[in-house]
């Protein structure tokens, strides 16, 4: 387990300790146990409203995502159609789009001067649509990945035994999808519950989640005690969620022999099936492409027709708070932070994944791996913890000796790595575990040393997944907004921070710059994501 040690230390220092600091701050604001702030927060009607809103907003977002996403999952799982593979990759693009880009896109579309003329920002609808945009891929890809492995012959057997198509779906397909639907719903709920950037940009004054409130209490009102109490409340909620999530997950894998995906795909046979395919593709196109396309197109629109004014204007724009920092500095900053994050999270993620898999191997069958679920769950906790918690925790915990990173350039890559690590581990563990132990034994018996086996057998089998994980970490860092908002140094803004600052300033020029920067960020991330998704087999990944 020596391999796991650096990761454990890293997470203890940069995740566990900040969380402890939050709890300490909330319960002992002035050095001794004092529950007054707690009582005040719980009694404050406006804060209670925020908590209540966070809850029902995430429930509603989850329902909307399921209703819209499940038919699309069916389409991917059952039909062959042109562009299916590409579309499957493209679905990921919105999921990893930075919240500020999506916020800007929806402002362009349904903002006060949006192109549709429908002004929805400041209402629940804007938040629901944006959450649908983000989480659509979670539902579609998680559920379709399971659906593809279901044997269609079970449905056919049910049909010959007297079941109508609807009752065959209800009694055969749905029960076997239930755990993947629950898993997808849990993730959507989690993400909606901890939604920050979208709500900040689109929610207006009245639509506020706990995350936004924590940020405002910290950055605007400087009520760190109140923020800490809110963060504790949110953490408790998240831990409860993770427990439920884990339970739903543990009930997976009921099918006997899983079929290779793609084997059962058929062109839609009836008029109804063709209609189902077309309408789902239309929804996908409208929901996923339109906001981003409108954003790109609008960024080329100027006061006098079309042009690159918004982009050329970036050269003279200033995004620092006190000195002359240009947006290009922000781009360079973002790239540097993203590279550092990528290196940290892949090194730490790969070593801990190897440690987990190696331990499972020594214990026996690879299945035992999931028996090690406690260790795994502990490593997954940051997935549930919100970016704001990470940012706020690091802010109050790492600003004094022995660890003072407040003014260090490493603060952001570290926080980003905490956020990216769970994704990296989730991507790497199954891939490492899927290597047949007999291959390694064969290597050893042919005379290769342990290191040699690792270099010439294990590494070539997993390098693709390593690149995928690296790309994911890169994209996460590039778009990270929640934690960055707390930790960014005012003169080293990242791209998302520069966008949000431009959005925060009045004037058409500023909005144009926000759009131009959003398009740049969007393009970089889209390219990274499409490239890495091409490296993975269809259906192997959930999201």
């Amino acid at each position, binding site marked *: 387990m020596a391999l796991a040690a650096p990761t454990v230390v890293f997470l203890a220092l940069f995740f566990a300790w900040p969380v402890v600091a939050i709890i300490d701050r909330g319960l002992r604001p002035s050095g001794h146990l004092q529950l007054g702030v707690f009582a005040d927060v719980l009694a404050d009607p406006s804060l209670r409203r925020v908590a209540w809103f966070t809850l029902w907003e995430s429930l509603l977002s989850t329902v909307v995502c399921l209703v819209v996403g499940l038919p699309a999952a069916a389409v991917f799982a059952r039909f062959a159609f042109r562009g299916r593979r590409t579309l499957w990759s493209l679905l990921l693009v919105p999921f990893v789009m930075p919240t500020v880009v999506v916020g800007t896109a929806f402002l362009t579309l349904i903002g006060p001067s949006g192109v549709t003329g429908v002004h929805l920002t400041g209402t629940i609808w804007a938040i629901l649509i944006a959450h649908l945009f983000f989480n659509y891929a979670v539902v579609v890809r998680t559920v379709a990945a399971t659906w593809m492995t279901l044997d269609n*012959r*079970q449905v056919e057997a049910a049909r010959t035994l*007297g079941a*109508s198509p609807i009752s065959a779906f209800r009694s055969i397909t749905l029960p076997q999808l239930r755990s993947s639907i629950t898993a997808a719903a849990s993730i959507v709920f989690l993400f909606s519950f901890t939604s920050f950037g979208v709500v900040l940009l689109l929610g207006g004054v009245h639509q506020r989640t706990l995350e936004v409130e924590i940020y405002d209490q910290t950055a605007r009102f400087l009520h760190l005690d109140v923020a800490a109490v809110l963060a504790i409340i949110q953490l408790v909620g998240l831990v409860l969620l993770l427990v439920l999530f884990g339970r739903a997950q543990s009930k997976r894998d009921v099918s006997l022999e899983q079929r290779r995906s793609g084997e059962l795909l058929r062109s839609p046979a009836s008029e109804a099936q063709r209609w189902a395919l077309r309408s789902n593709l239309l929804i996908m196109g409208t929901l996923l492409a339109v906001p981003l396309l409108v954003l790109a197109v609008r960024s080329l629109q100027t006061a006098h027709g079309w042009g690159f004014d918004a982009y050329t204007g970036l050269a003279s724009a200033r995004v620092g708070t006190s000195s002359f920092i240009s947006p290009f500095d922000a781009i360079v900053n973002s790239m540097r932070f993203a590279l550092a994050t990528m290196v940290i999270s892949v090194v730490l993620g790969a070593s801990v994944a190897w440690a987990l898999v190696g331990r499972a191997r020594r214990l026996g069958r690879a299945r035992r791996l999931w028996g090690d679920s406690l260790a795994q769950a502990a490593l997954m906790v940051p997935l549930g913890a919100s970016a704001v918690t990470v940012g706020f925790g690091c802010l109050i915990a790492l600003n004094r000796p022995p660890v003072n990173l407040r003014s260090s350039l490493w603060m952001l890559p570290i926080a980003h790595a905490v956020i990216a690590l769970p994704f990296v581990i989730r991507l790497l563990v199954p891939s490492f575990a899927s290597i047949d132990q007999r291959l390694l034994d064969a290597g050893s018996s042919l005379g290769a040393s342990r290191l040699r086996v690792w270099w010439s057998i294990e590494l070539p089998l997993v390098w693709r997944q390593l690149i995928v994980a690296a790309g994911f970490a890169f994209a996460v860092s590039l778009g990270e907004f929640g934690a960055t908002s707390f930790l960014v140094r005012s003169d080293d803004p990242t791209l998302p921070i520069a966008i949000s600052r431009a959005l925060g300033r009045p004037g058409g020029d500023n909005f144009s710059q926000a759009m131009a920067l959003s398009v740049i960020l969007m393009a970089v991330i889209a390219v990274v994501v499409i490239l890495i998704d091409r490296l993975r087999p269809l259906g192997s990944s959930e999201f």
Partner: protein
Amino acid sequence: MHDALLQVKELTVRHRGAAKPAIDAMSFGVNAGEIISIVGESGCGKTTLLRALAGLESSESGHVLLGGADITAVAPQSRGLAMMFQDLALFPHRDVADNIAFGLRMRHIDRAERQHRVEGLLDLVRLEGFGKRSISTLSGGQRQRVALARALATEPKVLLLDEPLSALDRGLRDDLLRELRDLFRSRSLSVIHVTHDQGEAFALADRMLVMRSGAIVGSGAPADLWHAPPSAFVAKFLGHRNVCEFDAVRSVVTDSEMRGTVLVLERAVSVVAASEASPANAVVSSAVFTGTHLSLCCRLENGDTELFATADPTGAGWLRPGDRVCLAVDRSGVRALPS
């Protein structure tokens, strides 16, 4: 003449976008209580045929009649047929009893009656007490029986079996085959059984149909078909190894005259070690002991022709590759094959 229980008339099935139909204007009938085995190489359309009969595949033209009623356009759930799938398609999220009871539930049969019938079926397939077991804990043979019980539960007018035993190892397969046969006979079930294994068909069928490229190329009782196959293809498919031109074996066949391609039954070929009385006319090229007999392949000295024969492995009959032998064919074992 009374009509068959299931009649297939000029049935044509074409996969989407395919130039050639998978089932090409096929016609045959199944009488009540009859077991039909359809054999053919993989890809010949036999599974498609079964799926079309079950209503899982739509047909381009032709008709399927069940008990005189046209069911060509009837939905699968209303046909009154049951199908046992190649890899069984058991419902992994339901226990054994729930799997068997599925069809009964779909027919809204009440709980008590359902339970009673499931008990009976579990007895029938010798799985007493397995009702609450999960499918994943069953062995291959036990799963097979659950699938069979599930298909029988709805008392289908015709039972469709798609390679029902292909996943099992040989010993288990022979046992189950015998059980199936006795079961079908004792309940006078009408069965269409599809397999690529002619041995399975021989053991089970009242009548066999040989399929090739979506059409029937041979039919008859198993023994008749074996002893008088209608073509070289059918002969080879059924497992005959001695299919050759008559001219090539003329020298070893006693007083007979034929033309074209012939089938030489292995049991009609006698092989003895060469001696003064029986001069050598062939050389043993391989000898394989199968447990019950010695399977010999002999090359005729006057050409490239090889003939297979069986020999008693006891005593002096044990021949080895390279031994020179005297080979003779009884003319009763030579069949002309229409080209």
